[in-house]
């Protein structure tokens, strides 16, 4: 007898016994998780070709153990480095990294900028909740100035990264930002990332009502998503606004999407050259 759980249209992508996942009620990670499965489904990527590489942090628990695909849950900050090895070893694989803002831009920052520079065909889904959620709410490189967190009790003195700008500057050939409110945009961007060859970076602003939301006085996930809606400015509109007007806003959309030879393809071409040169 098929239970109703097995009839969810995305049930086939889930590991048996992995539900419910361990994210908090209303956590944006769950929305990112479902969006990814919808994108995979729509793009028709076979599951046995997908490898998910997860960092440490709440976002790492999106694919692990939830998705029924080859999963590599690695050390903090390093999923992009591990993923680079996976992709180069078997370029046929669709290698997707799930990482958080702290995981990929603090401890993992070096790997992020080099992967973008190399244009290795790894797809990075960066879930940005502007805080270190898993460890209790410490300030992150993406936390806005002035916010009081567990480790900035008198207010954050530092300026935050604009992660999308960072990756563009590092040479990212596909960079987009959406929020969990804008699921259609998230799914569409994931599909684009999954069906193109080069390095792809998708930043998803995601609600952490328990740690970040509390800091800005919004403890309800619904209210945080409405806040994302209000604070989001499309790329087109943002072009006509000043730095000051954009302060505290999230510019959403696709920033760059260009065709540059992907690294594992370049290796394949070089193999041919090298084998000719040996004789």
């Amino acid at each position: 007898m098929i239970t109703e759980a097995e009839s969810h249209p995305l049930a086939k992508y889930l590991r048996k016994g992995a539900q419910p996942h361990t994210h908090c009620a209303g956590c944006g990670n769950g929305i990112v998780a479902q969006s990814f499965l919808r994108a995979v489904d729509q793009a028709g990527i076979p599951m046995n070709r997908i490898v998910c590489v997860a960092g440490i942090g709440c976002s790492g628990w999106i694919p692990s153990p939830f998705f029924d695909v080859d999963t590599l849950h690695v050390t903090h900050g390093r999923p992009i480095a591990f993923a680079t090895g996976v992709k180069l070893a078997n370029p046929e694989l669709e290698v997707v990294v799930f990482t958080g803002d702290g995981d990929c831009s603090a401890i993992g920052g070096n790997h992020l900028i080099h992967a973008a520079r190399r244009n290795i065909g790894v797809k990075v889904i960066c879930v940005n909740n502007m805080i270190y959620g898993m460890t209790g709410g410490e300030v992150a490189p993406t936390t806005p100035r002035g916010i009081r967190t567990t480790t900035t009790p008198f207010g954050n003195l530092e300026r935050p990264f604009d992660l999308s700008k960072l990756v563009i500057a590092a040479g990212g050939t596909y960079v987009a930002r959406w929020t969990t409110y804008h699921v259609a945009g998230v799914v569409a961007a994931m599909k684009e990332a999954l069906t193109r060859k080069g390095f792809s970076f998708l930043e998803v602003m995601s609600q952490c009502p328990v740690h970040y939301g509390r800091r800005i006085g919004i403890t309800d996930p619904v209210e945080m998503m409405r806040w994302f809606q209000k604070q989001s400015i499309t790329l087109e509109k943002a072009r006509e606004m000043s730095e000051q007007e954009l302060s505290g806003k999230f510019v959403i959309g696709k920033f760059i999407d260009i065709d540059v030879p992907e690294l594992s393809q370049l290796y394949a071409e070089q193999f041919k050259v090298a084998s000719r040169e040996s004789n």
Partner: protein
Amino acid sequence: MQGNEACALGAVAAGCRFFAFYPITPAGEIAEKMSQLLPKARGVYIQMEDEIAAIGSVIGASWAGLKAMTATSGPGFSLMQENIGYAVMTETPCVIVDVQRAGPSTGIVSAPMQGDVVQARHGSHGEYAIIALAPSSAQDMLSMTIRAFNLSEQYRTPVIVLADETVAHMREEVVIPEEESLRIVSRKIPSSQEEAARAFLSPSVAPMPVFGRGFSAHVTGSSHDEYGKREASAPEAIDKIVRTISEKIESHTAEISETEEVLLDDARVALVAYGSCVRTAEYVVKRAREKGIHVGLLRLKGLWPFPSRAVSEALASIRQVIVLENNLGQLLPEIERAAPAGTETTFLPPETIATLHRPDYVLQHVVEAANK
């Protein structure tokens, strides 16, 4: 041929098709040679942004099905420890060549030292076991690298080739074995979904569910069960992991860690040495024998798991043991513990650490020991 070059040849002969590196002296020549050899063998040479990424990408490549290696020296080896622990925890085959140099810290980049011996055993946090081999010649750099790959595949573990600057940079005659004569071991791949599901914690080493074959492997550095399912609240789970992983290696010490006995049968004095110290020891034994002194050499080829039983047996009738190490006694406690009760053990570092032992200096101590 240079030791480092021989290491690269050995790696490729063993089937290595992924090599990630971050530049560091004195391991550079391994990388240069790999960067020339691998593309012709359709293997990937990549220079990563740091040593942490080097070992990380090696582990990723291993899970995607390739035999993978990195090479470094002390400072890089220190950086790699977290991910080495990850490879241990996830039972990932991979080879790490550590060409030890004088430390701590930046130290002297091109001077020999054996300061990473304890680090090779316990450099990562947590409780675990690991394999480390100590080459003493350029030939060893080739053959022990092949052996390192075989052991890593057989036991699904990272294996450290603990070279030192002298062995890495020395140039001597190297015999390149015929491909047909080589014994190459590769990881077992599961033959069914069922077999693939139980991917971890088998004392007889579970088949490895490499990616891309539909096995849906779940690989995590968190505490887990034999299915790779995270078990992060039960101490019993981590107890099982710690004991199983350690036993997997330690219970096979005799097969894993080789020793070599030179002229010990009629000896009352013995030198114990590994790595570049072996070369001095061999020469001292020859000179001492010419003087009529019954001295022999116990050469340690595998350092971890420490071959206690082989050492005990080899030193059974030895009265005076002189341990040569280019450090302040890192393997010494293990040797002392394994030496028979009636044996006196003396530790003899070089007069100047970070140089090779002066043969006359060692010979002097051998003569003194023989006269006791």
